[in-house]
């Protein structure tokens, strides 16, 4: 029998590989539970990627402060919440944050004093179009941990601020798809429709849904955020007031009052609405006869 040359063997092997690949391709995709829509990070790190998500979120905060940020050794004085990430100059959250970020203190020795010439020691926030610099970190954090809700709300806030309403909506919808029970994302989405898209009817539907989600979580004993309930009820109440549904607005403000740290201001609004409602009732009465 004539011996086959190495090139013929190589070609035959390649042909066999190609033929097998066409047969196996279909089967291999069914072996893995992984969907084709999985992103690179999920394929590479699996569920371990969630460990890095917090780090990327912190990196967004670092970028927001232009590198002036407490280290793990200053963590006791580091900001605990994410309110400052969506707060403007002069707002109470911003003033509180200003105190928190004064973490450096006087230098303890000459090495620390000299070392400060090589680091950023001034507390500033990104301004103008530079605010978009935090978005790549937030987007990556969302890819790594799709269940981290603040990532979507903070990114959407800045996207709206930068005039990228469609991108903000798409990102929030993505967040909602991953977290269908999140009243936070629904609240932010409602704000987007109410303030940026000027679609109050849609905003109301979304905030109603947010309120329902909050109640469901409370009923399930999950201790949802009371402050957020206040915000949702307050925003919804103002929308109802604009629409002329004063009774519903009062009902919602009563709800917001329960959750508010300053209920007196809300009580004042409730009283005003009650007066308006009272004035409307006698005026409507003759017509109804």
């Amino acid at each position, binding site marked *: 029998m004539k011996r086959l040359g190495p090139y013929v063997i190589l070609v035959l092997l390649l042909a066999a590989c190609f033929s097998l690949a066409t047969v196996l391709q279909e089967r291999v995709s069914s072996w893995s539970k992984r969907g084709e829509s999985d992103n690179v990070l999920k394929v590479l790190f699996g569920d371990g990627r969630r460990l890095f998500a917090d780090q990327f979120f912190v990196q967004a905060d670092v970028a927001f402060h232009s*590198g002036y940020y407490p*280290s793990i*050794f200053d963590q006791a004085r580091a900001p605990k919440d994410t309110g400052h990430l969506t707060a403007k100059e002069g707002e109470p959250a911003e003033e509180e944050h200003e105190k928190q970020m004064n973490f450096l203190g006087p230098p303890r020795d000459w*090495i620390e004093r000299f070392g400060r010439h090589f680091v950023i020691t001034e507390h500033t926030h990104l301004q103008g*179009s530079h605010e*978009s610099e935090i978005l*790549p970190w937030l*987007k990556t954090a969302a890819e790594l941990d799709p269940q981290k809700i603040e990532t979507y709300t903070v990114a959407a806030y800045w*996207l709206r601020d930068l005039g*990228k309403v469609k991108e903000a909506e798409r990102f929030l919808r993505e967040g909602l798809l991953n977290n269908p029970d999140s009243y936070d994302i629904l609240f932010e989405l409602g704000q987007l429709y109410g303030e940026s898209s000027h679609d109050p009817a849609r905003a109301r539907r979304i905030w109603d849904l947010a309120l329902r989600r909050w109640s469901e979580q409370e009923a399930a004993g999950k201790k949802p955020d009371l402050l957020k309930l206040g915000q949702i009820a307050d925003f919804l109440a103002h929308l109802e007031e604009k629409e002329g549904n004063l009774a519903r607005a009062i009902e919602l403000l009563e709800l917001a009052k329960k959750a508010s740290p300053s209920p007196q201001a809300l009580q004042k609004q409730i009283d005003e609405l009650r007066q308006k409602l009272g004035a409307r009732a006698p005026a409507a009465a003759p017509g109804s006869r």
Partner: protein
Amino acid sequence: MNTVLAITSVVIRELYRRKDFYVLFVLTAVITLVLGSVSFFHDTKMVRYGKDIALLLMWISALVIAIATTARQIPAERENRTIFPLLAKPVTRWQVILGKFAGCWLACGLALIVLYLFFGIVSGSREHHWPLLNYCQAMWLQWVMLGMVVAFVLLGSVVFTAPSSNATISFIVVLGILFLGRYLNQVALQQAEPVKTLVYTLYFLIPHLEWYDVRDLIIYDQHLVGWVDCGLATLYGFLYMGVFLLGAWLVFRRKPLNL
């Protein structure tokens, strides 16, 4: 002086003949370009995340080049027995140490020039502004820091037998100083005596490599470091280089060269 320069040129030639730098440079360049081409939320103005990652990769690459190149210099000469004809030239052991140090340090400088040139072109093409003075200052400070690292690794190469153990220990020490050096005084103050005194002494003893890491000033378009501070940091770096080189010579001059 000529002897030192001759040894120096041999070390530099070795760097560009070996593939380490090319591999690291291509990796840095590819990762930077891929990340730079990613569009987040259809916005092309975001550049700082790219600068952040590129500078991190440049720091890692430069450290790998410095430690890996320096760690094998003297052990390789001893293993190949080329140290004997070298010392018979006649070349003193001090000249060998100085030549090896200068070669590795200059090689790191050349690598830094290529890396910063690439970084400057990429970030300038995205940002449309060229803070050349900031880049030069950052590069200079990083080079001084690498000088201390090279001198330290050279000392390690006459103390430890294998280049691998020297490289590993050097990496741990350098990364430890870069991450924790700045905070050792805070750690010390939280300890009870005598740990407090020990940690504080360590804080004053270690070379503060973290000073030379001014990446944040570049990433966030901050001010230049004062030139006086830059000069003092350079002087501090030179002093530590002197300490490590002298230490290396003291160990090397009495060391038997047979394996």
